[in-house]
């Protein structure tokens, strides 16, 4: 394995991490707002708050890690994506900023502001949509080179069915991932009502997730035939992903083993995400930028990988510690000790 592949694998893994923890976070915000609207707040808020509070900052770091890492390993991405993504990513930043800070304001400062909760829920849904534009653009066809500068064609972008399928997928996957996780979490907390409700949401969002995911593969046939062909060579990964999906839905429907259901869901998304990523190889931005012509110099690559390994030695034990203290701590999950600062 060469350094380029190693670099992109690391980054892709962190992006996957962000998508999972981010989805749980964004979806939870939406369910919280929705429960307010439908008067079911009593059921959901506790479970949601208890999971989210200690980890809200950590979620954000996964994203920072990804974008700092990609500039580090592939500096040319700054030139192509930086120039073209100003508007969509700026919207993403603003939404993230409002959402993140107002989460803290609400949790630690002033509790129970309704209008804010709706904003919070809505922003959570718009963030995946605004950030998933990056994936759309990477498929090529939306950027033109004018005078040696990349320019994004908004009209083509916003009229493309591919764009909207990816947006819909990001929304339904967010809600699906979040609902499955929270079902498991609520069940651990012994909260029967919340478990039931969240299980229902999970089943509702399972279908659109799988339908749009499949649909996107077929849209790529027209949009980017080369990518479509590559996807076919990775068909076993997508098949495994689909089987895992069936497994999750089965367990949810039978009301058992929610922990396993979430585990299978993780596997489903991992296979699909890495299958998609692998089939995108070697392009970072089709057809202008490949992994190889944008890779940083060997000295920096080595330095970054060493820093990365040392960093992980610090992070993995810390992450395990936070999970044992909160996620997998029975007393905490059940709310026996909730005395925060």
């Amino acid at each position, binding site marked *: 394995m060469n350094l380029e592949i190693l670099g992109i694998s690391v980054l892709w893994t962190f992006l996957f991490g962000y998508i999972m923890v981010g989805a749980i976070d964004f979806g939870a915000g939406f369910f919280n707002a929705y429960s307010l609207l439908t008067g079911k707040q009593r059921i959901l808020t506790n479970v949601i708050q208890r999971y989210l*509070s*200690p*980890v*809200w*900052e*950590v979620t*954000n*770091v996964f994203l*920072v*890690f990804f*974008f*700092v*890492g990609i*500039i*580090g390993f592939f*500096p*040319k991405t*700054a*030139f192509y*994506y*930086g*120039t*073209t993504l*100003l508007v969509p*990513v*700026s919207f993403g*930043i*603003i939404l993230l*900023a*409002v959402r*993140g*800070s*107002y989460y*803290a*304001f609400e949790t*630690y*400062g*002033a509790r129970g502001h309704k209008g804010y909760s709706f904003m919070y829920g809505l922003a959570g849904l718009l963030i995946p949509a605004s950030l998933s534009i990056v994936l759309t653009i990477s498929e090529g066809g939306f950027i033109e080179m004018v005078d*040696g*500068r990349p320019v994004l064609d908004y009209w083509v972008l916003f009229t493309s069915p591919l764009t909207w399928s990816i947006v819909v997928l990001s929304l339904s996957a967010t809600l699906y991932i979040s609902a499955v996780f929270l079902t498991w979490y609520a069940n651990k907390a012994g909260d029967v009502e919340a478990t039931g409700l969240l299980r229902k949401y999970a089943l509702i969002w399972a279908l659109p997730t799988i339908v749009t995911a499949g649909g996107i593969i077929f849209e790529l046939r027209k949009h980017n035939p080369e990518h479509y062909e590559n996807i076919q060579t990775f068909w076993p990964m997508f098949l495994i992903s689909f089987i895992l999906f069936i497994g999750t839905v089965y367990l949810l429907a039978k009301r058992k083993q929610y922990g396993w259901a979430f585990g299978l869901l993780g596997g489903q998304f991992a296979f699909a995400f890495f299958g998609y990523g692998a089939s995108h190889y070697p392009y970072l931005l089709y057809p202008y930028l490949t992994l190889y012509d944008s890779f940083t*110099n060997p000295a*920096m690559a080595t*330095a*970054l990988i060493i*820093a*990365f390994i040392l*960093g992980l030695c*610090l*992070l993995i034990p*810390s*992450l395990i*510690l*936070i999970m044992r*203290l*909160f996620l997998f701590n029975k007393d*905490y999950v059940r709310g026996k*000790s909730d*005395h*925060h*600062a």
Partner: protein
Amino acid sequence: MINEEAVFYSRVLTELTLSFHILYATIGVGVPIMIMIAQWVGIKKNDEHYILLARRWARGFVITVAVGVVTGTAIGLQLSLLWPNFMELAGNVIALPLFMETFAFFFEAIFLGIYLYTWDRFENQKKHLLLLVPVAIGASFSAVFITIVNAFMNAPQGFDIVDGQLVNINPIIAMFNPAMPTKVAHVVITAYMTAAFVLAAIAAFRLLKGSDHIYHKKALYLTMKLGLVFSIAAAIIGDFSGKYLAEYQPEKLAAAEWHFETKENAELVLLGILKDEDEVKYAIKVPFGLSLLAHNNPKAEVIGLDQFPVDERPPLYIHYLFNIMVLIGMWMVVLAGWFWLGIKRGWKSVQSRWFRWLIVLGGPLSFIAIEAGWWLAEVGRQPWILRHIMRVEEAATTSGHVDLMLILFCLLYLVLGIGSVVVLRRMFRKNPVERELEDRHAERGGDVR
């Protein structure tokens, strides 16, 4: 092809984001240390007031961290969105500290989460104190790493340019550039100093507003004492920074000091205003001051602006920023020293209302000094984004939408600024320390010390 308008708006937007971010980032770097010290003093003296101090600071700290994190994310992405050509070039050389900064940030985020949610989980307060160590280390080290990136922009090294291509890249040499030691030390220590004086201002304000509780007096004494130590350290490192500039970035020092002609026995220009091109009025001139400042030798030659082509000189208004920063810094040393001596000797003046108002004023003044210092450092390396390698206009985006984004971000910072102030005020108004102490005693069944 350079898009002049995009260059201008990119500069304004970057300045706006950074100016807003550093207010929160400075607190984010400095306050964890203060919390750690308070917690430690509380354990050592077995005094619950200090423990409560740590707890209340931590609670307010979360709000500022939230804004710091999200604006930090914004500037992190804006670097690539607004300055794509710079990031493409610099990414090859300076990605390492950027990357390490995210690790420091990650580390801090994890332990801050744990710290905040385990207040009553550990019987032993010492264990709880241990959680603060990684928070403080993470916070300080993210400042260290990100300042290294900035230092690199001032003193780029660790690579060669052959036919427009970067070769012989050495990330470690790039990190340990000549600007790095003074810059990193100054940034970190002034963050501690600012945090100390801001917390002192809060304590003094509570004392002024009627509460005469011993808790606030302890807080005031602790923070002013720490403020004194950090502000003296900041002044010493500031002096080193001046010497660094004289050696490596003489145009910045010359512009900041209005030192137009290269000469020996150079005098230091304090205050004053600039008329026309190079006529200085109403200034206090300290003979030999600049030579002394620059080279520790009253007779040394100091390079003036005349050594640089006109289009490579920084704007001359940075002199005012320099004065603001230095004067506030000096004033805070005096104020903190006066307070400390006054407490030791039992002077009446330090207990008086007007003195406490001066301490209250010290909080915002410290922030002003931080802003002025950063503007001085950043504007002082104009017109370069990478000194002597890349000019600012070559680095900017060519996108035509920067002006719209500027408006949106203005609104965002307005909302975040107002939001954080309102929430912080409400948080502490509703729950004054007297009540919290009572509540805690009630919880423990009247275990009053």
